[in-house]
């Protein structure tokens, strides 16, 4: 791949990336969340088309991968992070979805099952081809996905975070399959956040950062430290907060021994023994990679997810929180991660949206629209929500302004503790800085704030203290002054014991 560029709306996802993968090698691709790994792989798999650049495949120069089908024809197969399987169909039907061997349009069952059995043996999965997929474990389903890639006779197989749902023994089995693929001269691209795996399995590694390639290295010649520096090292793009001393301020939020094992599987811990404190006026960031359990933690505290143990104290008082309504009553506010799906009432007005969290204030028997409107107008001006009136429908606002509407809703309830989840995802730099200022001002006014963010420069810019999570646990605590992106990444991506 040569000089690949791709824009999505206002975001330059890839800006001139080169990637060269040899037959029979395992080539790792690393980078932070949003560095462009997935986009690059989607281009290679024909899901997206590049705006610029050239792809050469298997000796053929400048191939055009117009869609997934074309990419398959060229021998590219991708094992997706989110499994692209059909749970109600059998293993065989999944592997040969849409490509079942037929005679006169009729599926040749016998051959289908024979071919499947052969592929299953190759990936080391002992099960009947007729088994419904839903009866397999997550790891076994992953193996089915790999068998599907093999059935395409792929010359290049892309693994996108294949071990995220696997146990160690299953990971070992996967590695055996990969080694076997190597022996058969198949090229493998391996994407993972777990750096230790890369040193175990990969031959070479390419680092991406903000859509730009940082170079390709022999794994034997590079260290973990160097890799992390390449992934995150950059000039700070936001000015750092002057940290005020809050060590004497009262603790506003305390979480003690919070656990959630309800959805726990042998591989995936949801939340384990989480304890932390946030003081008045403090901005604590919860850093970590996607899937580390940060959003789950926030939802558990807010009563929107079950938890099986743990105590929550707000302003020193133990509170019972079983629903978001309880949480709000206790002085807690949560700005959700996905504003369109979980935050906004898109077809309603700004005023209706801002009033949603504090309907009680506007009267029980005669809802005071004028008051709701006046409040919304006040916040529209304060937060500079670009719009013509509080009566404007939220759908027609830009992302940054929509986020401000959600924030306004929670400012209206005057929370003691505010949890904001990915507050600046998908909004432009100007609006980002405004949201950061808003968060700082709130803290200065005495609110205790927890910021969940995958954007490391953002974490460093706003937070006075950082908690790093990995696999449902808090694995590190860093002070605002001596934290660096490298330190955060180390806690977030390395095994605790290592």
């Amino acid at each position, binding site marked *: 791949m040569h000089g690949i560029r791709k824009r999505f709306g206002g975001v330059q996802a890839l800006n001139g990336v080169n990637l060269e993968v040899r037959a029979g090698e395992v080539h790792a691709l690393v980078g932070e969340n949003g560095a462009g790994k997935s986009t690059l792989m989607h281009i290679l798999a024909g899901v997206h088309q590049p705006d610029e650049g050239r792809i050469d495949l298997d000796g053929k120069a400048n191939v055009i991968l117009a869609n997934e089908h074309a990419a398959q024809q060229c021998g590219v197969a991708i094992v997706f992070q989110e499994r692209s399987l059909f749970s109600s169909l059998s293993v065989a039907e999944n592997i040969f979805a849409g490509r079942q061997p037929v005679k006169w349009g009729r599926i040749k069952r016998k051959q289908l099952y024979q071919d499947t059995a052969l592929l299953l043996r190759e990936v080391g999965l002992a099960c009947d081809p007729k088994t419904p997929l839903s009866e397999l474990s997550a790891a076994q389903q992953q193996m089915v996905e790999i068998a599907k890639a093999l059935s395409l006779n792929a010359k290049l197989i892309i693994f996108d975070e294949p071990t995220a749902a696997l146990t160690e023994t299953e990971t070992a089995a996967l590695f055996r399959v990969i080694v076997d693929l190597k022996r058969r001269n198949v090229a493998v691209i391996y994407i993972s956040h777990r750096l230790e795996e890369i040193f175990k399995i990969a031959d070479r590694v390419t680092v991406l950062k903000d859509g730009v390639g940082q170079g390709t290295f022999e794994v034997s010649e590079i260290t973990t430290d160097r890799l992390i520096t390449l992934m995150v090292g950059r000039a700070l793009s936001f000015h750092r907060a002057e940290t005020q001393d809050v060590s004497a301020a009262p603790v506003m939020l305390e979480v003690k021994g919070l656990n959630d094992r309800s959805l726990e599987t042998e591989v995936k811990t949801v939340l384990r023994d989480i304890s932390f404190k946030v003081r008045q006026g403090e901005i604590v960031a919860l850093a970590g990679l996607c899937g580390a359990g940060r959003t789950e933690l926030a939802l558990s505290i807010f009563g929107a997810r079950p938890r099986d143990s743990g105590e929550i104290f707000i302003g020193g008082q133990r509170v019972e929180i079983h629903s978001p309504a309880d949480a709000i009553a206790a002085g807690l506010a949560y700005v959700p991660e996905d504003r369109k799906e979980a935050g906004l009432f898109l077809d*309603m007005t700004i005023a209706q949206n801002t009033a949603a969290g504090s309907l009680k204030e506007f009267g029980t028997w005669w809802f005071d629209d004028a008051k709701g409107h006046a409040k919304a107008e006040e916040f529209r001006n304060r937060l500079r929500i670009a719009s013509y009136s509080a009566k404007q*429908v939220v759908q027609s606002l830009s992302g940054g302004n929509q986020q401000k509407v959600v924030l306004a809703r929670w400012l209206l309830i005057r929370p003691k503790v505010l949890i904001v989840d990915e507050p600046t995802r998908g909004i432009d730099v100007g609006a980002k800085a405004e949201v950061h200022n808003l968060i700082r001002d709130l803290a200065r*006014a005495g609110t205790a704030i927890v910021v969940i963010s995958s954007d490391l420069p953002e974490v460093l810019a706003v937070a006075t203290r950082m908690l790093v999570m990995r696999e449902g646990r808090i694995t590190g605590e860093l002070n605002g002054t001596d934290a660096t992106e490298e330190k955060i990444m180390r806690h977030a991506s390395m095994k605790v014991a290592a």
Partner: protein
Amino acid sequence: MPEVLQAESPAPVLSARRSPKGMAFSRELGLAALTIFIIILFSVLYPVTFKSFGNFNAILRNLAFEGILAIGMMFMLVGGVFDLSVGAMASMIGVITGWLMKNAGWPVPLAVAAGLAVAAAGGFLNGYIVARVRVNALITTLGTMGVFQGIALLIGGPGITFLPESFTKFGQSEVFGVQAPVLLMVGLAAVAHYCLAHTRFFRQLYYIGSNPKAAHLSGINVERLQILSFTLMGLIAGLAGIVYASRIATATSTVGVGAELQAITAVILGGASLSGGKGTIWGALIGVFFMALMKNVLIISRVSSEWQGIILGAVLVLAVALDSIMNRKKS
């Protein structure tokens, strides 16, 4: 309140995207205009048959039953769900109430109260299955529709006739020449309008209909409200069945067949959306009135009953399509 950004100068209101006047179009007003147009047109075309007080009274009398159902249905659609069991519920409650007073010999008020209690229980059952057990509303109410209809036929056979006079007195009485069921509908609409437009409690339905997840995270008790609105719908449907039985002095087991679709049609014509979060009681009333008017003018113009169905069906699709096109142009 932490005084956020207080230090900054009052921000200029940025980029007025489009004039607020563009938003003024609403389906309620459009339909009202169309209704008036039809009235004027047919007053000119059929000055004698159409433009008489008797004819208007007949239109109103016939719409009371569907009007009461449509009021309840508006609550449902605002909250993002609908109830297909209302017609069968009306039949069943009419028959149960009739059976209690005629066959079991209960006093009329007690029979009516019992009927309404059963109605509320049936509605609660719907709500519980949809909100707690989380079965899709279409499936749930399609199922209970069959159950309620079956119970109505089991108890009433084809129907229970010659209901006591103390019961039928209400349905057949008139005030200033307007039948009591029509007045009841208007009274119910007034109360419903007040609730939906002005009380905090029912306002929450708009949020739930618009985005249930965001509503939950905003501290709104989505489950409880949904169960309650289904219960209310059951109660209103039961009331409609009782009032109808009172008017015609007979509890017919099949009186509500197809009424659920009529009610949903009327409510959608009047501005509700199947995706929830939209609609007003006044819109529901216009929708019902428009449907009744259309039927009336089709009868007066001697359009055959086969064509009436075709025309009414086409009107529904056309109205919603027009709305969808207008909305797309706006954005």
